[in-house]
Each structure stands twice: as C-alpha cells, then as structure tokens.
C-alpha cells in the first residue's frame, strides 16, 4: 500500500502550499480582523485557475479528482491559510458548484459552470433554515409551481458566501406531505426577483468567510432551473453532494492540524524557560507527539475517504469517520497549541487562538457530530438507535 502522492498531486500540493505560505498566511491577521471575504485573494484564485477545481475541463474547470481537491485544501491550511477564507473558497468549489456538475443537465452546465469555473460568479448552497438544521429533509421553504416557473418562499440560514454569492443551489419543498421525497433543488441566480440577502451573521471565527441569511420572497425561478426531477432534491442531489462536502471541506481542518503542530513545535524550540528551550520538557514533547498523531491520522483518513470516492464507490463510513475524528482532533490540537504557547497563545498575533475559534464548526457544519456518530453506529452495527 503506497501512501505517497502522485507527481501531479504533489505538484498541486506544493504550489498551493508555497502560495499560501508566502502570500496568504502573512495577511491572515488582517483577514480575521476585517471579517470580510478577501476579494484580492479571490482575484488571484481566478488567475491561478483555483475557482473551478472539480468542474470538468469542457466547462472551463480543472477537472480535479476529490483527492487532488482535498490535497489542495489541506496544503493551504497547513501553510497557515485561514480556515474562514478556505471555507468560502471550498464552499464555492464543492457544494456551490458540484450540484450542477453532478446533477445538472447539459443546458444548465453550459449556462452556469463556465462562470463558476472562472470565478466570475461565486456559488453558495442553501439547505439549512432557521428551524431546520440536522433534520434537513423537512425544509420549510416552499416552491410552488406556476406554469413555466416556481415561486419560492422561505428563509435560509447560516449560508456561507451568502453576502457575496451570485448563484445559490436552493432546497425547497414542492410537496410537504412527502417529507424528504417532496424536496426539490433549484439553481437560483441572485438577480432573480424576490431573492435577497438577509442579515450578515457575526460568528465566533471563520472570519474570512461571510455568512448570512438568504430570503426568498415570492422569488421567481424558471422551471428549467430545477435540478433533476421534482422530489429528487434531497434524495438525489443532497445525498450525493453532502458526502462530497463531508470529504472535501474537512480537509481544511486537517491542514490546520498540521499548522497548529508546526507553530507549536517552532515556538517550543525558541521559548526558553528554566534555562532550556521548552521543547526539552517531557510534557511539551508529549503534547507535540499527540498533535502530530492527530494530524497524521486525519490525513490518512482523508486519503482513504477521498481515494474510495474517486474509485467510484460510495464511502459513507469513510467520509463520516474522517469528519468525526478530525472534528475532535481539531478541538484537541487548537487547545494544546495554545497551551504550549502559554500566555502568548491567547494573543491574536500568535495565530493559534484563531484555530480554537475556527475548530468548532467542523463538529457542527455538514452534519453534527451527534448525527454522524449515529450514522456510523448504524453502519458498523447494522442496528438503529432506540430514539430513531
């Protein structure tokens, strides 16, 4: 079994790592404070072809595999790119674009993918609602068909890229009586009548990504903008995309585990107490070993989950285990990184406190740890929980 990256994967990794280290990491304090998606960075992504990573070449993208995509996200965060901006970028490249790649018809692909691939348009994904999180199959937002269009009504919540997105993939109930089988998915342009960006949300971390509500008030969406058939929004579009989301966006936190380790090991070599660099003290050494273990295990789980998906097989267990582990590891790693840095770790300037603020999301977004743990329990025991 060979765990090394191919030449192409390695070159993608190295290119992203170098760029993030030299041009992105030095400005992360500024990004974190401004709490805005850095458009100057997006312009560079456009130049480097980083906006359409998994979009096929025929539509202007790079046609990368999932493993190549994960490798790029991991490399950026490992070099010190902030999780927030990575998340905004990753959202565009995965859940903001892939529903059209995987479920769009030819006309939809030709119309929308080149704009998303070039970065002219930014994508977002509207599933979560104020009262619908984990129970995503029961969306309250409705889509009522009227002749050649649908009328969408409702509010979507916690939408990454919401304030900046030009295009949203929106899930709405076309038949509430059918539950999950009554949900349909739509491609909705920002300029469609009745589409508006709601309150910009003030978050604990991930400041490089902007989050908001998206409001649909009698929003008119042409029938040709529906993805697949009515009722296939959650069962086919959502089911396919959420596994990709679980696999790919988590790679950002895997990279962050490496960043925490690098910062902490370097600091421990330089910081002297009681006449010795603190890296010589057993408690510091043990903490560093566990941080490195968490990083390596997370990376191996990433390789396993992404390789399986790339081979054409579904990997719900692999993707879910990867996300659960990385979520827990991110908490440990960020906390230990601060502990090793002592008082300085609490200072923004030293950058590890940001990891702690950014770590919590990975245990909540794209499936809470509770829901995912139950999913793994079902998969590995072939039983259901007492509570359903």
């Amino acid at each position, binding site marked *: 079994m060979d765990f090394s990256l191919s*030449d*192409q994967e390695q*070159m*993608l990794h*190295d*290119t992203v790592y*170098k*760029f993030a280290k030299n041009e992105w990491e030095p400005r992360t304090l500024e990004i974190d404070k401004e709490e805005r998606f850095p458009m100057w960075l997006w312009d560079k992504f456009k*130049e*480097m*072809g*980083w906006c359409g*990573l998994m979009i096929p*070449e025929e539509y202007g993208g*790079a*046609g*990368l595999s999932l493993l190549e995509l994960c490798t790029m996200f991991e490399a950026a965060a490992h070099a010190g790119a902030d999780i927030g901006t990575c998340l905004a970028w990753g959202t565009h490249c995965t859940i903001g674009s892939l529903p059209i790649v995987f479920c769009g018809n030819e006309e939809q692909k030709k119309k929308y993918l080149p704009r998303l691939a070039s970065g002219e348009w930014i994508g977002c994904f509207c599933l979560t609602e104020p009262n619908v999180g984990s129970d995503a199959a029961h969306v309250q937002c409705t889509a009522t068909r009227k002749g050649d269009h649908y009328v969408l009504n409702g509010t979507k919540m916690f939408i990454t890229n919401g304030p900046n997105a030009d295009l949203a993939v929106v899930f709405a109930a076309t038949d509430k009586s059918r539950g999950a089988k009554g949900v349909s998915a739509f491609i909705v342009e920002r300029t469609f009548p009745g589409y508006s960006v709601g309150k910009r949300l003030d978050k604990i971390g991930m400041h490089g990504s902007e989050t908001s509500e998206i409001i649909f008030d009698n929003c008119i969406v042409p029938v040709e903008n529906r993805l697949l058939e009515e009722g296939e929004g959650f069962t086919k579009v959502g089911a396919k995309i959420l596994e990709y989301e679980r696999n790919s966006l988590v790679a950002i936190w895997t990279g962050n585990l490496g960043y925490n380790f690098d910062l902490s090991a370097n600091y421990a070599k330089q910081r002297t107490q009681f006449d010795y660099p603190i890296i010589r003290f057993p408690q510091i050494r043990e903490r560093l070993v566990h941080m490195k273990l968490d990083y390596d295990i997370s990376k191996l789980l990433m390789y396993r989950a992404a390789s399986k998906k790339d081979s054409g097989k579904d990997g719900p267990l692999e993707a879910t285990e990867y996300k659960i582990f990385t979520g827990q590891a991110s908490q440990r790693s960020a906390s230990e990184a601060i502990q090793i840095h002592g008082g300085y770790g609490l200072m923004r300037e030293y950058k590890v406190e940001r990891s702690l603020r950014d770590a919590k999301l990975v245990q909540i977004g794209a499936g809470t740890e509770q829901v995912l743990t139950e999913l793994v329990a079902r998969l590995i025991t072939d039983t259901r929980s007492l509570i359903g």
Partner: protein
Amino acid sequence: MNIVVAMKQIPDLQQVRIRNRQPVLDGVPMTFGSIDKNALETALQLKEAAGGNVIVISAGTEELEDTVKEALAAGADEAYLVLDDELENIESSVSAHLLAELIKQIENIGIILFGEGSGDNYSGQVGPRIAEILGLPEVGYVCDIELEDSRVKVTRSLEDCEEIVRVNLPAVLTIMADINEPRIPSVTQILKAGKKPKQILEVEDIGLDLKGDKKIITLSSLAPENKRKQITVKNGEELVDALLTEGVIRR
C-alpha cells in the same frame, strides 16, 4: 523562434538545515534556482509578446525528470534534459559543455537565457562559457529586454548606471533576479505539465567523459563557523565593562 532557458536543479534552500557546518540534504526536495525562475518568466513574457516556443534545458540526476515539471507547469513548452546520477555537483565547465551540446540539437534558436548565477554556487560561469563554445554574443546583468526583429535591445543593470546595448540574435543573455516576479503555475498548467514533450539524453549521447574532463575537485563545502565569545558577568555593571572592553559600545 525558440527561446531556450537553462535551469539548474538544486535542493530547496529554504528546507536545508545545517548540522556540524554541513548541509543536511536528506529528504530535501529538489527545485530550480530562484534566478533561473526569473529567466524562465522572462522567456514566457517574450513568448507572450512575440510568439515562439520556450524550451528548458538542464543536466542533472534522475530526479531532474520530476523537477522539470515545475518549469513545464510554469509555462515552458518542452524540455531537453541530460540525466545521469554522475551529474551531481559537476563543475561549471562540464555543465557548459553538456548544455552546449544540448543547445546544438535545437533548431531556430533566438535567445538563450540564464539566471545571472545558480541558486547554489552562484559561479555565474555557465552562460558566458556556452556563448564562447557556441560562438554567440553574450550580455550579462540584464534587467530588461525588447525584441526588435532580428535583434534585441537589452538594458544592463551595472553598479552605477544602466547600459543599453543592441545585440544580434541568436544571443546568450544572463538575467538579474529583479527583472520580474515569476508567475505561480495555474492548476490547468500543472495538469498539462506531465504531458509536455521531454527529450532525454544520456551523457554517452553527448560524448563527454565526465571523469576525464574533471579539472576542479570540491574538497569540502562548509557553512561559516559562527564564533561567539562567551563572557560571564555577575551584574549590569560588569556587562557594561565587558561590552566596553570588546568595543561593542563606547562611552
């Protein structure tokens, strides 16, 4: 017109550690020298302005076949390589002969570009030597190039002034580091890099006897010794006295 860029494979200097005054090269990835990357960027800009093909030439160990993908990803169209594990740490005169033979195999050459010095030894010899071997004009310290039909107008950055010269093509130009900022390869260029043509030769094909031609033997290559004088002081007063004695500060 073909624009040839000579590039030298070296260890990634940012990842080299020094132990006992010796560089630790285990596990250090190979890359190209940073000024070589400026030379490549110059070639790409000339191509964008006037068309043509950018051909990278290099001689080195087997790893070079991987390293050259970096240049192909940055936009070079083709590579001519001499690969041999004996080519580690070869002297400049041998490099010049090898590369000159490679260049002879390329037709319709307009400009041959080099970095002003390599990323490791910075001897700055290979470019001028090749110009001599091939009987071509050579211009050094180049900070700007303008194409003019069968000639180029070249600005040279000298210590106190800039000199502008016109040179007939083909010519050898050695490039200063501040001439440009090398581009970051785009994802699609990276994906294409593996499929671009590479002409690979062995030393035998060139007809050079590496051992026989060796004129300089490197005996050692050591990092400078960092001599620090240690003085023990008991208080601030003694510290000030010691610093005065050593001439670090004055009254």
